[in-house]
């Protein structure tokens, strides 16, 4: 302590003192910076919900009676069995998943069938919110990223296509569910 006091009395002493402590001061600054940097990293103040939004909408289409077969008497829904009467009515999705306000997310459900020769034949498609689908699909095709662009989720699931409600006339199909959620 006495040595430090002596050193501080003249210029040479002050320089020595500064040199001795320069690393310590720098180290403290780095430690403080690192501390706040790590805290900032750890606090999650931004949540990316696009994937959850897309999955929720896809599951709503797949699990609801929007397209799936429903037993008349019990209202039981047969998930995984597509009612082709609903599918062929191109407004089924818009009627079933209805919002009062302008919906941003859009979806497309496509059905394909594999024939005995192993070829996959396209059966048809149905849209939810087709206007938005056309707009958002254009941004995806253009490869745009960031705000104003969109994120797409695709699932393909083997299902049964039922042409009547009693399941007398049916086929095995592949259902492709595509959902687009805007990046905002």
């Amino acid at each position: 302590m006495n040595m430090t006091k002596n050193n501080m009395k003249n210029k040479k002493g002050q320089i020595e003192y500064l040199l001795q402590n320069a690393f310590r001061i720098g180290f403290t600054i780095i430690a403080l910076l690192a501390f706040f940097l790590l805290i900032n990293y750890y606090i999650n103040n931004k949540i990316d919900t696009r994937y959850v939004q897309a999955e929720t909408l896809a599951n709503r289409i797949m699990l609801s009676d929007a397209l799936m077969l429903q037993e008349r008497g019990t209202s039981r829904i047969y998930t995984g069995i597509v009612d082709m009467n609903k599918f062929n009515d191109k407004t089924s999705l818009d009627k079933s998943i209805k919002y009062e306000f302008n919906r941003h997310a859009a979806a497309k459900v496509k059905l394909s069938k594999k024939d005995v020769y192993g070829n996959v034949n396209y059966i048809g498609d149905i849209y939810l919110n087709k206007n938005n689908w056309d707009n958002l699909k254009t941004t995806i095709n253009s490869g745009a990223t960031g705000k104003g662009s969109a994120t797409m989720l695709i699932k393909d699931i083997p299902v049964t296509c039922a042409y009547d409600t009693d399941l007398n006339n049916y086929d095995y199909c592949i259902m492709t569910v595509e959902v687009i959620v805007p990046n905002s």
Partner: protein
Amino acid sequence: MNGIKKITRNRKGEDMLVDFWAILAFAIILLLFLVFFILSKNEVKNAELRVKFASSDAGYMLNSYLKSPSLVDGSKTNAEIIAEDALNDDFSRTEDSFKKFFTGVEKINAELEDDYIKHYALSNIKLCIYDSSDSFLAGYSFNVKTKTTTDLYLYCDILGSITNAKTMIPTRDSFIYVETVLFGNIISK
């Protein structure tokens, strides 16, 4: 300059050497933490979500398969065919129905491959059947890429994935477990 020489020569200089190694160790630890945070922050959460939703897809596929009328015998569902096969101890009809139901996915995947950027693709669908005491009865795997179906006499338990779904089918005497295991899902950004 003379001042620095003096410092490094005396006892204070030794202290500074200790400080130097401490700073170096701190910098390395800091770097490791930064790398760890950058890698883990969002990806872990997204990966957890993907696994959860992929498991729901596996459940949907299993449900869809079991409820669908069998192409082997149109008056019965695939679940009934499996239950009957378990009683007869011959799963040939189950294998046939599995092949007929799940093939076709490969064509759709191939088509999507050209159109979209995939994070990971559906690569394998497995069906595993166990008896009430959880012993393996039969298992089939459909490889989307090689388009082949294989028996899983050995690998059903070993290759168990977290993206799976399991349900129970009642039989005449007891019940059996049926499990679907998915590898992959298609996500585009």
